[in-house]
């Protein structure tokens, strides 16, 4: 007999469980995506999800981006001053925002805001039989609940990140010109000189991937939740935790893919 706390058995069970879950999630994602090309399409639901992702996330993403840009300028200035390289502040701010911090911070914020809400909503629908009810009402619940959200998040996140990038640079600019003694023209031209289009594009691609992951984790955890209020609570937690971890891990992989030469 295997002792329940046998570390090898526990590890094995954990790995097997993780593989099974990964397989389930992959099948779920494929099913969700397959409805993109099979009518009927729910434009109204896509729009509602898109507004939730893009419009209602704007304030929190904007605030995060402005403050991040400000902090970046301040911190990098004190760091670069030691090497008399203060001129690189604008460069650092714009590259960090577009390549990394814009997509990652927007992703984490949206995961906490919308990913959690999706998991809670679908989880509640699951435990109150509303998802089963859809099936009895001639409606495919994947098509109705999951596909519009996957698509909306994938489209909305890049737009949010574009805004976050601009506001992050603006934050750096505000600190640079008001506290650090840069002239407005010098700061802006330093920003634009160093900015290359593939920095922006790589960030937007990351954002699209993160958006998809947030919606996938939110819908999957909600859709497969079980067991009443507690099940909904843990679905919400897992949605946020898993999408946050995946965002950071995928950020590394995508960076490696884009920039490792």
């Amino acid at each position, binding site marked *: 007999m295997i002792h329940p706390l046998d570390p090898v058995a526990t590890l094995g069970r954990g790995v097997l469980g993780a593989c099974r879950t990964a397989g389930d999630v992959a099948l779920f994602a494929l099913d969700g995506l397959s409805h993109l090309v099979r009518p009927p399409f729910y434009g109204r639901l896509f729009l509602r999800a898109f507004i939730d992702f893009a419009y209602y996330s704007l304030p929190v993403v904007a605030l995060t981006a402005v403050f991040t840009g400000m902090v970046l300028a301040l911190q990098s200035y004190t760091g670069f001053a030691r090497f008399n390289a203060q001129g690189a502040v604008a460069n650092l701010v714009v590259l960090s925002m577009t390549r990394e911090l814009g997509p990652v911070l927007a992703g984490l914020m949206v995961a906490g805001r919308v990913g959690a809400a999706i998991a809670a909503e679908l989880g509640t629908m699951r435990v109150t039989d*509303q998802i089963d009810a859809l099936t009895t009402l*001639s409606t495919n619940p994947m098509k109705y609940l999951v596909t519009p959200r996957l698509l909306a998040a994938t489209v909305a996140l890049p737009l949010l990140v574009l805004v976050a990038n601009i506001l992050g640079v603006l934050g750096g600019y505000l600190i640079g010109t008001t506290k650090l003694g840069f002239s407005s023209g010098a700061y802006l031209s330093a920003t634009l000189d160093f900015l290359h289009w593939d920095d922006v594009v790589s960030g937007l691609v990351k954002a699209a991937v993160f958006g998809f992951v947030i919606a996938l984790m939110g819908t999957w955890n909600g859709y497969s939740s079980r067991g009443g209020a507690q099940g909904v609570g843990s679905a919400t937690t897992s949605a946020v935790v898993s999408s946050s971890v995946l965002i950071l891990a995928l950020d590394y992989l995508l960076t490696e893919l884009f920039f490792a030469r």
Partner: protein
Amino acid sequence: MSNYRHDAHPEDRTEPYLVAHPAEAVAAAVPKIRLRGVVKHFGSKHVLDGVDLDVAAGHSTVILGGSGSGKSVMLKCMLGLIVPDAGTIEIDGRDVLRMNRREREAVNDRIGMLFQNAALFDSLPVWENVAFKLLAQRRMTRAQARERAAEVLTLVGLAPSVGDLSPSELSGGMQKRVGLARAIAAEPDIIFFDEPTTGLDPIMGAVIDGLIVDCVRRLGATAVSITHDMASARRIGDTAAMLYQGRIVWTGPAEYLGHTGNDIVDQFANGERDGPIQMELRR
């Protein structure tokens, strides 16, 4: 008919009740719904353990059984929401478990379901809940669907103005009525009712039962209702079946409930503490 377990009432043994309605007796020969050996386990828990059941077309069948005995699971198997581990389920003589997605959806288009807790969509106003299937099947415009929703709400005794409310603004009894309206709006051939009166006061329960009987009769539909309320079972059911320990242990006319001669059913129907059913407080 060989599998149709009919333990007749002692005084009625010479004349099985189905023969009293010749037209229905013919219909009963090809059951609308037919379950054979349906098995469903959740992990080590044997919920359904070989369910055999015939539901005659145009009849109203009530399924009795204790809480947690698997009644809802059985209904969900018939709807395709849960896939059984073994057994066959036929609707109109066709094996629904071996259908592809599209065929299955076509069968479900003709089925209405009232869920145990109504399961109304709280993101939609009442009228869109009621008209949901009509809109999903693209049978009418939104304006027409809205009119139809008002009609159906009237049928279940609600004012059309209720259509503009959100489901969360309704009392339990009103939610059940809206759930009933949603189940019948697309005029299904088969309607399932999962504990339609549980959680309602006795008068509201009787009112809902009356609505169910009216609606089923008006549509000429086949109805399968789950209940553990005996008064309700006698009011809604033509036929009753008892689910116990994962099997249908008795089938017979609903009016015999309480004096069927089957110890399990009689204990359940009369709510006696002592008898063959021992409450399993732990599984």
